[in-house]
């Protein structure tokens, strides 16, 4: 392989429309709530504008009346005005609360749906998808992308909507007061938009640079700290600090610029609005002197001017959030568009259990149950060819036959195709050519779930789940009793170390299993497979992390586990496979030697070389 550098990509949504439609498909389900929320937004804005507008009659009629009115009448007029205002304000407050609450409910429930459907879809995706995407990548769909979308839905949606409504409401009221002053205010709008746009563009340019530098610093820190022990062993600490300094300095510079620009946004917008305010006060004052405007009208207009810039600033500051959220939505959408595992054919065979016996239940063309085949564990590969990508064949014309109860082992270097055989048998991947049969049935004619139910798999990577030891073993068969769980643990020679754990079988293990050794985790994996009690057993490097002495101790248990089951074993260590019925030596996707341990040694071929350590495995 030829290693090379990968450039990091920064993405904006490619298909804006489709991504928005995707988000809408979730929001649509909460149409009722959204509609009510919209009504509340309108009520809220209406109340706030009406409140401002109400000041004019109060001022002009009762506080500074043009004609003389008795004081008592003015006071009672004032009281009436204040009470009306109180009602308007209360309505506004209630509407504002209801609006946020409804929006919150709608968006949180939409996000809940989205998260659930994304997770469900991930469960249905093929192993191929998982093998070609990093976990980090998938994880960031779940956390970052869903989170930004969540924020955007909760904040930006409401604020964009209410900005538009507020602006139109303000303009309407302004026009009612004075068209001259309205024109003046409108003339200031392009200035505002230009200033906002300009600042936004600059700050987002430096923000991109800042994020890139931040990424570099964080990447460097992560790498060095992960290898911190090596750094210490080579006394490399000073060099590390010096190198870190360069990255950190670059970040400091871009971050300062980026934040200066983003910090300018608020004062600039606010003061442009203040300039507008000053102009309105000045010109409005003149208009009032010449009688074109009442004092109350001017006061109201001034208050409206104060409110005018806010929706513009708010809407423009949401722009970046919305773009990021849509880009996030698009990435989620892409995952949702990935095709799930191929569905089973309509009349695929299923696995049924009667007492301790398993059967393959086959179905006729009409969907009625036809014959029942006992599950014996007869596995055949007939001229199987396969490649993960069409250009590169991993398995070439593999044929093999495992009789019920036999132990078949595979040895060979990494990339020879051993694990691929397991991937095909479990139908994590489907073959390109040839046929694999179990008990005479093509595995493509068996429901995937049933096929996998018939197999217990112990994989090389010792993955466990956060939960108790007992829960982890029981994962193999959810209906297993506590006794069965313990029995399985004994079989895997795990019982003794489990009982020595602080809470025995109820000890909680973390998913990454920091509190267990690699070898102990492997033993739990074996116990989990043992409790599943399936007719076919697959061990992929199941004991690679156990030292040779311990491996000898558990061999006995493994032998009992394999008894009566067709077993496929992949092992790095030849001592593990020695007692197999047949050993397949694989090289470049082909079986180059096969036979028992002694046959193969006598052949003095590849196996002999491996056994004597003359060639390298891996």
């Amino acid at each position: 392989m030829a290693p090379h550098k990968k450039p990091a990509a920064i993405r904006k949504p490619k298909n804006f429309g489709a991504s928005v439609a995707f988000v809408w498909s979730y929001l649509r389900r909460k149409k009722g709530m959204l509609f009510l929320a919209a009504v509340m937004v309108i009520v809220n804005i209406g109340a706030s504008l009406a409140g401002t507008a109400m000041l004019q009659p109060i001022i002009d009629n009762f506080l500074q009346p043009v004609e003389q009115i008795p004081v008592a009448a003015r006071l009672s007029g004032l009281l009436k005005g204040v009470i009306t205002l109180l009602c308007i304000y209360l309505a506004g407050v209630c509407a504002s609360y209801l609006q946020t609450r409804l929006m919150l409910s709608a968006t949180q429930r939409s996000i809940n749906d989205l998260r659930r459907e994304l997770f469900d879809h991930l469960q249905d995706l093929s192993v191929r998808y998982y093998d070609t995407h990093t976990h980090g990548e998938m994880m960031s769909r779940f956390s970052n992308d869903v989170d930004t979308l969540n924020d955007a839905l909760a904040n930006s949606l409401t604020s964009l909507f209410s900005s538009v409504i507020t602006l139109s409401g303000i303009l309407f009221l302004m026009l009612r007061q004075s068209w001259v002053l309205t024109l003046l205010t409108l003339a200031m709008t392009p200035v505002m938009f230009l200033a906002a746009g300009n600042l936004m563009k600059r700050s987002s340019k430096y923000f991109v640079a800042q994020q890139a530098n931040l990424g570099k610093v964080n990447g460097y820190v992560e790498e060095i700290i992960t290898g911190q022990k090596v750094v210490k062993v080579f006394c490399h600490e000073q060099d590390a600090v010096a190198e870190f300094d360069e990255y950190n300095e670059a970040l400091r510079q871009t971050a300062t610029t980026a934040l200066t620009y983003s910090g300018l946004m608020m004062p600039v917008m606010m003061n442009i609005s203040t300039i507008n305010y000053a102009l309105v006060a000045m010109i409005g004052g003149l208009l009032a002197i010449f009688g074109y405007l009442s004092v109350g009208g001017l006061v109201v207009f001034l208050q409206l001017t104060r409110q005018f810039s806010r929706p513009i600033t708010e809407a423009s500051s949401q722009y970046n959030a919305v773009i990021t959220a849509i880009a996030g939505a698009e990435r989620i959408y892409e995952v949702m568009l990935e095709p799930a595992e191929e569905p089973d054919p309509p009349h695929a065979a299923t696995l049924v259990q009667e007492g301790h016996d398993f059967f393959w239940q086959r179905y006729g063309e009409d969907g009625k149950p036809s014959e029942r085949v006992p599950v014996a564990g007869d596995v055949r590969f007939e001229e199987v060819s396969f490649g993960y990508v069409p250009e590169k064949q991993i398995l070439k014309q593999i044929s093999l036959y495992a009789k019920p109860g036999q132990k078949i082992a595979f040895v060979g270097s990494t990339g020879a195709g051993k694990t691929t055989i397991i991937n095909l048998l479990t139908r994590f991947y489907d073959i390109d050519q040839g046929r694999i049969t179990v008990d005479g049935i093509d595995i493509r004619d068996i429901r995937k779930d049933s096929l996998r139910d018939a197999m217990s798999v112990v994989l090389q990577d010792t993955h466990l789940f956060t939960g108790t030891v007992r829960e982890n073993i029981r994962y193999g068969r959810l209906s297993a009793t506590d006794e069965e769980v313990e029995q399985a643990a004994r079989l895997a020679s795990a019982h003794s170390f489990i009982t020595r754990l602080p809470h025995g079988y109820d000890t909680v293990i973390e998913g990454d299993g920091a509190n267990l050794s690699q070898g102990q985790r492997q033993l739990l994996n074996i116990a989990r497979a043992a409790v599943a009690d399936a007719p076919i057993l697959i061990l992929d490097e199941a004991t690679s992390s156990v030292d040779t002495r311990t491996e000898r101790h558990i061999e006995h248990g493994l032998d009992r586990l394999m008894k009566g089951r067709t077993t496929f074993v992949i092992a790095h260590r030849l001592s593990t496979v020695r007692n197999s019925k047949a050993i397949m030596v694989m090289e470049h996707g082909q079986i180059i030697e096969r036979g028992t341990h002694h046959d193969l040694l006598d052949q003095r071929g590849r196996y002999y070389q491996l056994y004597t350590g003359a060639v390298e495995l891996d």
Partner: protein
Amino acid sequence: MKLLVPYLKPYRKSVTIAILFMLFDVICEILQPILMANIVGKGIESQNIPYILGTGAAMLLLACFAIFSGFGNAKHSATAGVGFAANLRKGLFTKVQQFSFKNIDDFSTASLATRLTNDVTLLQNSAIMGLRILIRAPLMFLFGLVMALRMNPELATILLVAIPVLLVALGLIIRTAFPLFNQMQERIDGLNGSVQENLTNVRVVKSFVRQQFEKQKFRTSNDGLTDASLRAMNVVILNMPVLMLVMNLSTLSVVWFGGQQVIGGALDVAQMTAFINYIFHILMSLMMLSMMFVLLSRASASLKRVTEVLRTEVDLTDSIHAGEYLVKGEVKFEGVSFKYDPSHPKNILEDISFEAKPGEVVAIIGGTGAGKSSLIQLIPRLYDVTGGRVLVDGRDVRDYSLDSLRGQIGVVLQKNTLFSGTIRDNLKWGNSQATDEEVIAAAKAAQAHEFVSGFPDGYDTWVEQGGVNLSGGQKQRLCIARAMLKKPPILILDDSTSAVDTATESKIRESFHTMLAHTTTFLIAQRISSVRDADRIIVLDDGRIVATGTHDELMQTSEEYQEIYYSQQEKEADA
């Protein structure tokens, strides 16, 4: 908090300037309503056009000043905030570089990395927000209050009611919301954790046909998260309505009481409007402060995690009389006992004594958990012994300066790492002054030259972080080459050829013989074939030396050694 002061100190000037600009900005803004009131009140009443124009011009001028000071403030608060974060990040990084192995173990590398990345970034953002709002809001509050009192002390009594009511309400909201938010955060972490686990375990899930089970499990935690979020947010969204309510009621009070004053002739309408504006400013700044409080307390978790690192005492440093000495390569353990955790009752190593002469090859063998790695890590003083002494050339390792001791010991750790960079860069960690010839010689000795020259870019081939683009055996050989380039008097190899085949491994051992004939070599291995040629083999079991000797001697005397031997050899035909 006090720990952080030194990081902000270099930016004292910036902070001061930022505060001054903000002060100027606030003054400009706070004068606007009163000027407006003058235009609308005095100006219109007296029909004084020049007065209106003059006051208007003053307003415009103030706005321009405010833009200017806004710029100054933005620049200096960004400089200070970012600078603080950069200094802090550097302080942390430098601190971690001083950490001992035990310090690193205590935190775990993953957690250290998060603290230096996510937590510092969060602190940076809070610092910048804080610098802006924590200065602005109190100034606004103060000046607003002064203006309101000067204008009309009677009406200002409204604030005596409004401020406490708002404060109590906001306080109640924050206090109720806080635990709810913590609960929400826990559920977010839990959900992410289980999704992560599910992704890693996809093959297990699929092979045991547990998709439905997992979906059900997810549904429960997903709904739990939504419930928790709604519970927390439903409290927080009370913020805005409460503020609106208090503001509106204050406005109404001003209109009602102020209106009576207007009718009585003691106040004009314009002044009343200006007064309403001041009340807005005052209440708004309180609101901002309360939001800041929430933001900062969220950052406090990060702050705690960061200061934990800064506060950690480095438990392994040069002693006062430590010196630099040239090492010949004699190593001696005298009654050494050791445990990682002092509070743990049982020692990992117990009563270890042995001696290695310069140039000797000492192999250590034993099952997992026998204490092999712990033993060799005591030689370069990666950990300190619990009891007894480790001597290098007859001198206690604690009497060497760490740099001089570790500089002369080559270590290939079991969990080894290559760093992103070229192969050459990586090898030169062993000796930054090494010439190309020396680099190639070391690679040849470690049997790495052949595959490296097979790459199109040879020694300039880019190694990805952690060496993920190399096979296990290739990585191990490069790590050995890196240590050999050091030409150390003492070399330690901790299970560092496990992924290399026996033939290549024996070639590597051969080159040790020729290239490092005077180097004392410690070798940990699983395979008997790797250790059988050693001058001396130490068999460890459960932290104790159970046997020492050559291969042949041990085959005679040691039951444990024989057991290991037979577990790897074909005894009789047992197929």
